[in-house]
Structures are given as structure tokens and as C-alpha cells.
């Protein structure tokens, strides 16, 4: 039951620097912890995040075991034209989630 929270301004002026905030629900299990019986808790993390603006990749990040649960990623871009932001998270055990948000540029 993965859920994402995305914050993209609904409207912006052409050339504005806008902040994009994303929060993805994930346990980010490091793979370094043991159970009480000594067994390793297998690693389960998001390994990659990408954002495309009207199809063009504008931001990409690799994630590692030191990232806390529910990774919050925020970044800036320039509002060039109206359209859509596509977000994609990929991780261990076939984890793959997408989300989208649109923007109107005046």
C-alpha cells in the first residue's frame, strides 16, 4: 500500500524557479540489522528516483541504505512550459511506483 505525497506548484510564471517536494512511503530496511535470533533482516530499500518534465529527465538520485524510512526528496527546476511531471521510484524486491503532477506555466 505504497503512497506518495507530491508538492508541485499548480501555476508558475515562465522562468520561475520552482521547488518540487516528494515523499514516498517505504520502510528503507538497511540490511544491516539482525533479528533477536541473529538472522539478518534482508535489505529492502529504494535504489533510484527520477523525475521527468514533459518527458525530459530533469532530476535523478541514487539511494543507499543510510537513507531514512519514507524518503523525502526536494529539488528545484525552472518552469519552462505547461505540462506534466512524472516521478518514478525503483527499489529492491521489484518495488516500482510512479506518480504524476501537472503545472500551468503562464
Amino acid at each position, binding site marked *: 500500500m505504497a*503512497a506518495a*505525497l*507530491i508538492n508541485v506548484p499548480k501555476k508558475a510564471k515562465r522562468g520561475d524557479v520552482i521547488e518540487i517536494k516528494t*515523499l514516498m512511503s517505504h520502510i528503507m530496511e538497511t540490511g544491516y540489522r539482525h533479528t533477536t535470533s541473529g538472522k539478518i533482516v534482508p535489505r529492502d530499500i529504494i535504489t533510484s528516483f527520477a523525475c521527468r518534465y514533459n518527458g525530459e529527465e530533469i532530476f535523478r538520485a541514487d539511494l543507499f541504505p543510510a537513507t531514512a*524510512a519514507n524518503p*523525502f526528496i526536494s529539488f528545484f527546476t525552472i518552469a519552462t512550459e505547461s505540462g506534466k511531471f512524472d516521478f518514478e521510484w525503483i527499489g529492491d524486491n521489484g518495488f516500482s511506483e510512479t506518480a504524476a503532477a501537472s503545472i500551468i506555466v503562464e
Partner: protein
Amino acid sequence: MRFAGTIALASLLALIGALAGIVIRPLIAAEIPSTERRSGYTFMAPDTKAMQDDDTVNPGMLGVLDGETLWKRKAGAASKACADCHDDARVSMKGVAARYPAFDKALARPVNLEQRINLCRARHQEAEPLPYEKHDLLALSAFVAEQSRGMTITPDTAPELEPFVAKGRDFFMHRQGQLNLGCTNCHDDNWDKHLAGSAVTQAIPNGYPIYRLEWQSLGSLQRRLRNCITGMRAQNFDFGAIELVELELYLMTRARGMPVETPAVRP
């Protein structure tokens, strides 16, 4: 002779204490006056406050979103969803968390929000209870409690609850465990100080379930209470134990008049 010496030493120590301006606090602590009560929020760093204030940054909102999905999902032999009886939670659940724990007539005891959800599952959905502190129950209770966000906490004043509140207050006030501490010794006497670098705070549970950064997840008030009891090295209780519900009841009377912050973020 030795006895007289002891008395002389004791008076000397008292004199030194008085000269050094040390105030000896009474053994029985006093509750914090209602005008001085502060939400745990006011003790937090600006970054943590900002995290709670922005719904797209507050990780507790992920639980609320999942809770909304569960609210509409059919469960149990009756194949009913919460929404089938309660309809829109924005209307039906508004203010509920601000007055819980409440008295359940059939059980003749108070129940907290998580227990109410499980009672509903048993009585109306004919479903298995959701396990404590697991994702589903936390998400559902966060979703229900979030409907009361901003509302004033007004504990249920049903006369049946009085003996339970009194027991909870007793638990809070009495010293126990290997460290011989009562909750009151920190949360009434020393709430303005720090313990291992963290603010002690006033034991005002106005944002549960909270997203605690240390836990990296949502957690219930009972999880927090069990943490404290372990810290006092006292005998702990299982999730859902009546002792913990009584303590919750008393703590909500401390929170009277404060706004619900669910899902709050705490460090």
C-alpha cells in the same frame, strides 16, 4: 555521640544547601497549572515544526492516506467497510479523537481509539482484530484522528470513567521501578529541562498516533508510554492493557483545551 554527629552533619548539609540557594522540592509533585501547559510541538526545533506543518512533507500523512484506503475497504465475514456504516469520515469521525478514550458499556471499561476500531471490526465487520502497532491499525487510527485535527481536546466526563481516570492519575504520580521514578518526577517537576539532550516535555498527548523520527514510523501513545516505563525500569504492560488505557485517560485530562495535532511529528 555518633547520633549527635549525624545530626550535626545533617544540619551542616542543610545549611550549605540553603546558602547555595538549592530549593528542595516537595516529594509529592504538583500538576502543571493549565495556563502553563504546552504542546510537545512547542519544544521542537524549527525544522521539525516545519515538517509537521506541511502536509506534503509530514510523513504521518502517508499513514493517513493509507488509512483512508482501509476505511473504504471491505473486511470480515460481514464484508463491510468502515465507510458502509460511518459513511464519510470527514463528517462522522470529526471530533471523535478529541474525546477518546471513551467508556464502552458492554465491556464496562474504557477503550482507546485503536480498541474501538477493533471492537467495530469484531462486532460489525465480523473480522479479526488488527494487531497493535502494525501498519493497518496505525494507519486507520491516524486517519480517524486526523478528522479531529485542530479541534479542542475535551475528555469524556462520563461518571463511569472517573475511577479509571483516578487510577491513571495514581499511576502517573507514584514512584516505581528500579530507578524509583514516577512519571510526574519528569513531566511535572522537570518538564523544562533536558534528558540526554532531549526536551523532557509535559506529557500532553495531543498528536497521536505520531510520526516519531526516532522510530521512522507512526506509533501509538501506548508505544510511547511503554518506552517511558521501560526507561524507568519498571514492570511494563502489554499493548491494550487496562493500566495503559487508564494512563491515557489521565493524560488526556492534562491535554484538555489543546488542539489535536494528529498526525504530529516528534523527534
